């Protein structure tokens, strides 16, 4: 079963605009991770935010986490054509990490030049 649910399913914006994707989950987590996937190939790790953190930045990426609402958001500022990809949130529910990550279905982001 998939715990995470990204919203929207698809997003198309102009280059230079900001893109925001949201993720909701159902159970308590140890951490939440965001990944990018280009054209159905491997996933690239973007950011990991722990359950006791509220916000994290990495370059043009900003991730927030609200454990009371069981939700997270990924903001990409000043988007570029190369940001076109699918973005997934994944939750680690603990258990020493051996339970694996639980992914949502992803948000497909298209950046129009």
């Amino acid at each position, binding site marked *: *079963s*998939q715990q*995470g649910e990204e919203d929207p399913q698809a997003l198309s914006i102009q280059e230079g605009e900001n893109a925001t994707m949201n993720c909701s989950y159902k159970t308590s987590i*140890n*951490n939440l*991770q965001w*990944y990018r996937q280009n054209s*159905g*190939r*491997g*996933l*690239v*790790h973007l950011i*990991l935010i722990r359950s006791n953190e509220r916000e994290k930045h990495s370059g043009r990426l900003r991730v927030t986490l609200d454990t009371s609402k069981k939700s997270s958001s990924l903001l990409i500022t000043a988007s570029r054509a190369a940001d076109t990809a699918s973005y*997934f949130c*994944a939750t*680690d529910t603990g*258990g*020493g*990490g*051996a*339970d*694996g*990550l*639980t*992914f*949502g*279905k*992803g948000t497909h982001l298209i950046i129009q030049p």
Partner: protein
Amino acid sequence: DAGVTQSPTHLIKTRGQQVTLRCSPKSGHDTVSWYQQALGQGPQFIFQYYEEEERQRGNFPDRFSGHQFPNYSSELNVNALLLGDSALYLCASSLGPGGNYGYTFGSGTRLTVV
């Protein structure tokens, strides 16, 4: 420094056959996890190997089995292939089973069952 390497890249098998997929983890990583990603879906956790043992398994039948070698590389075996096993199979490595610093994924093996 090589990342995660998976082989083969693409594979076509016939229903009922058996398949073996291979994964070499990123240098310095000792834990390997396998995921199945159907078209249009997010990856689903199959199992994880650490210290040459299967530590945890997702909701997959016994037809899916694996192995980890002393050099930390891993194999995923699927027996009695079904059409529904067609998917992208992703290998992810980490330092320790906790994955507290994120996972490094390979580019995947695209399996098509006909």
